């Protein structure tokens, strides 16, 4: 399944597509660096070249909360020494998510029940191949969406509320709506499957409807964004803010006929 994301320009420099990939996942049961390195060593000794340039995901879902915290920088480094390239981390506690954010490593939510059952078949096998559904930043055709809806019961998306400022270098992801009651700094990034509300200045990037929702909207009290996007359509308002009459005011951003509309609230 490969679907095209409209970029809106006549001669696009690239085509954005979504896909489903099979990836190696290391499901952590211990955070002890020595144990991890030992096992990697044993694993790679048998087939030294097999793992060269292999993308891997580190999963925290099966890790007991009693385990001491892990240093992601160090883990990434040791994986690299065995040819494995850490591309994302999955699941775990809020602290894991934050560590990943600080280390600039993408974070994926724990798989749904369906995937979990697959996992259990090989629960004692550390090197598990699982299918990662790439949901973010891809779009689904209305037909496929309709087909999806008949297969799976509708999921009630939770609203994520954050009351502290989002600072430069931080990234927040919400599957459903994202509500922020503090300033969002330039250099910060908000990603939401649903709507984004910012009750304060929005100076960073806000990407709403990232899983293919064209009806998502962005609301903010003080519009000074670096980038706004709904379902892949984007604008970079701060580049031309001197001529923008709405700069600094309360606005609502919506997607109408493939283009972004910004209106005063």
């Amino acid at each position: 399944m490969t679907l095209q994301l409209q970029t809106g320009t006549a001669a696009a420099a690239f085509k954005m597509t979504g896909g489903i990939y099979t990836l190696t996942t290391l499901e952590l049961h211990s955070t002890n660096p020595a144990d991890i390195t030992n096992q990697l060593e044993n694993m790679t000794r048998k087939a030294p070249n097999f793992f060269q340039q292999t993308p891997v995901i580190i999963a925290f879902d099966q890790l007991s909360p009693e385990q001491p915290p892990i240093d992601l920088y160090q883990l990434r480094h040791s994986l690299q020494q065995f040819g494995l390239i850490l591309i994302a981390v999955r699941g775990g506690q809020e602290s894991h998510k934050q560590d990943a954010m600080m280390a600039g490593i993408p974070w994926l939510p724990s798989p749904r029940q369906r995937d979990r059952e697959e996992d259990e078949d090989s629960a004692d096998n550390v090197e598990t191949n699982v299918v990662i559904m790439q949901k973010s930043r891809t779009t689904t055709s209305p037909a496929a969406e309709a087909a999806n809806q008949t297969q799976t019961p509708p999921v009630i998306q939770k609203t994520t509320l954050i009351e502290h400022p989002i600072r430069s270098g931080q990234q927040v992801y919400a599957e459903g709506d994202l509500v922020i009651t503090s300033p969002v700094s330039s250099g910060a990034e908000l990603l939401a499957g649903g709507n984004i509300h910012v009750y304060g200045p929005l100076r960073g990037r806000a990407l709403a409807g990232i899983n293919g929702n064209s009806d998502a909207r962005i609301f903010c009290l003080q519009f000074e964004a670096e980038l706004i996007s709904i379902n892949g359509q984007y604008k970079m308002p701060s580049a031309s803010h001197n001529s923008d009459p709405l700069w600094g005011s309360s606005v609502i951003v919506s997607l109408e006929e493939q283009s972004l509309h910004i209106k005063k609230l």
Partner: protein
Amino acid sequence: MARIIVVTSGKGGVGKTTTSSSIATGLALKGHRTVVIDFDVGLRNLDLLMGCERRVVYDFVNVINGEAELHQALIRDKRTENLSILPASQTRDKEALTHEGVEKVLNQLAKDFEYIICDSPAGIEHGALMALYFADEAIITTNPEVSSVRDSDRILGILQSKSRRAVENLEPVKEHLLVTRYNPDRVTRGEMLNIQDVEEILAIPLIGVIPESTSVLKASNQGVPVVCNTESDAGQAYNDVVARFLGEDIPHRFLEPAKKGFLQRMFGGIG
């Protein structure tokens, strides 16, 4: 309970060490037992500003490595009672600061001192993370320009996610905004951000504004923290900061361009 205060910024050269030396000295002058630690391993600046560079025998890393006792490395300030300095090593790299090592030294200092001031290195790497990890309060040192404000914002994000208080889910680190090297003339000319801009972007309480002043360089050449020069604008501003830190409510000053006399207007201002 001792309070651990980190002076940090992200960006380099904004005035962290100047601030650490003056705030530590100011607190000690007010009768509080204070120690200031140089976390800038590899560079060593604090001892110069404090005028004790010739008295450094052992340093922070020696203590962490067990090569010296803490009391051997601590330097008692000659001018100010109640004040000690723990200098950095010039010959090691920042990786020498281990979590356990830093914690051990801080715990030991907490028995003898009320305030522990940590002078952070620039950047957001290991040394800066170590300096802020154990902090109870943070003085976010910022120059009124876009890149410095952006870096301060970044450091605030790190304080809120990577400090001990964040990791252990305790009450968050108390944050103070200190704007340094503020030049009202350049603000008027639109060459620098004004205080409101900086406050608005960082959204944390303002503890003080230190004007750009030639007295700072003079003080550092003499090895006397500028806070001791109560004649100077920067010295007075640092004294205000210390008083505000201790809970006094003092209006901010040095925010407007100095009114110039006739001769000064004729011949241009002096710093």
